[in-house]
């Protein structure tokens, strides 16, 4: 019985993890303004609360 070498499994995961990691990095980078602007006055409600 020929077993699948673990390195092959690792390589297969790497093929998909590389673009995924890049996409995740880009999304985290893009979402940064949300956190940096969080404390700014821009975060006030657009309309007065009733």
């Amino acid at each position, binding site marked *: 019985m020929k077993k699948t070498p673990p390195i*092959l499994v690792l390589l297969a995961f790497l*093929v998909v993890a590389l*673009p995924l990691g890049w996409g995740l990095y880009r999304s985290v980078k893009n*979402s940064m303004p*949300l956190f940096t*602007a969080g404390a700014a006055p*821009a*975060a006030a*409600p*657009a309309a007065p609360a009733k």
Partner: protein
Amino acid sequence: MPSFLDRERTVAAPGFSRWLVPPAAIAVQMCVGEIYGFSVFNIPLTRAVGITKSVPGQDWSVPHVVLATYSLGLVILGLSAAIFGKWVERVGPRRTMFTSSCCFCGGLFVASLGVHIHNLAVVALGYGVIGGIGLGLGYIAPVSTLVKWFPDRPGMATGLAIMGFGSGALVGAPFGVELMNHFKTAASVGVEETFLVMAACYFVMINFGAWIVRVPAPGWKPEGFVAPTRAGRLITTAQVAADEAIKTPQFYLLWGVLCCNVTAGIGILAQASPMCQDMFGVTPVVAGGFVGLLSICNTLGRFLWSSASDFTGRKAIYVVYFLLGCALYCMIPFSQRVGSVALFVAVTCVIISMYGAGFATIPAYLRDLFGTVQVGAIHGRIITAWSMAAILGPQLVTYLSSYQKAHGVPKGEAYNTTVYIMAGILLVGLACNLLVRPVDPRHHLREA
């Protein structure tokens, strides 16, 4: 067609590691999931003639572009998954993935031609129809294969695959933007060249998945795995054929579960940016960051919640999705009243994580109720609920918020009615879920 694609050639030899199948599934789903990131092409496509700005009467409008690509693609996805589900089970995952790559990438090629000759009907035919068929095939083939490989952890397996689809936007959107920036000139927005490059890259990636995918040999089970047989649990050891499954109330209840879960989530997802701006007055850049964060939650939720369902059971986890979702929706107006962006972001992130999870958990739920023999075909048919929700959800949010604004409701409060309606939709989904019982044995396959 070469025999390399035949199902018989994909039966795994003894010693094959089943962990090679998740990357195959993710590779395919990540590519076809690009449709989630298609919105990056909306504005450039409306400036194909004017380049720097849209030329009225000559350039396309955003609603027309969205209808011809995103909406049509999702509708055809559901229909093709339903129509070709049994074919997918018969020919196996490799031929299906190859066909998916031909349709999806061929569709991008035709769409590129449509942009070149500036004909929206050709773009719709390419991306919406031909590409949509590729989407449907690429969506269901890896899922049913993984369910068969991981009978001990079906929630985790389907979560992994469908997480790949959710990640399509994370990869596809920035990839598309980078390519457009590279190809744009004074005379072109760069979309047609971008479509061609994407088609080539996706063709290679999907066929990488097709190359490494395998199906388990008949009777294969993971080492030490014993199928649960405890009476009263919603996990069957019997098998139900796809044609028989649609005669059961369980199929329609799960259809309702998926439709309600997706309608509620997709409404928020489609309107996330304007909602955030209207409710809290944040800038478009910050709202863009919020949308990016939602994409991450949508992706991670698919894997995490679906994996958790292996421990809680599928019915219980859907009760959590619906009850918690309903409570969180009701908190959105409160977050606006107290002016807390942080609370709004936290609440919507959890809602969207459960929206993604609804997709990821449904194949495992189907497998629990109907067995594995035709789970792909049954899954394909239930995906029509998604097509319905893809039309319902965004329309509901857009129409209701516009109506409220038109009737003098302050912008920040224009979404309140909508979110309460979404909470109500989740309660309908909860009722459907609570009505699910084991399938009547008269529907079981005799040889099972």
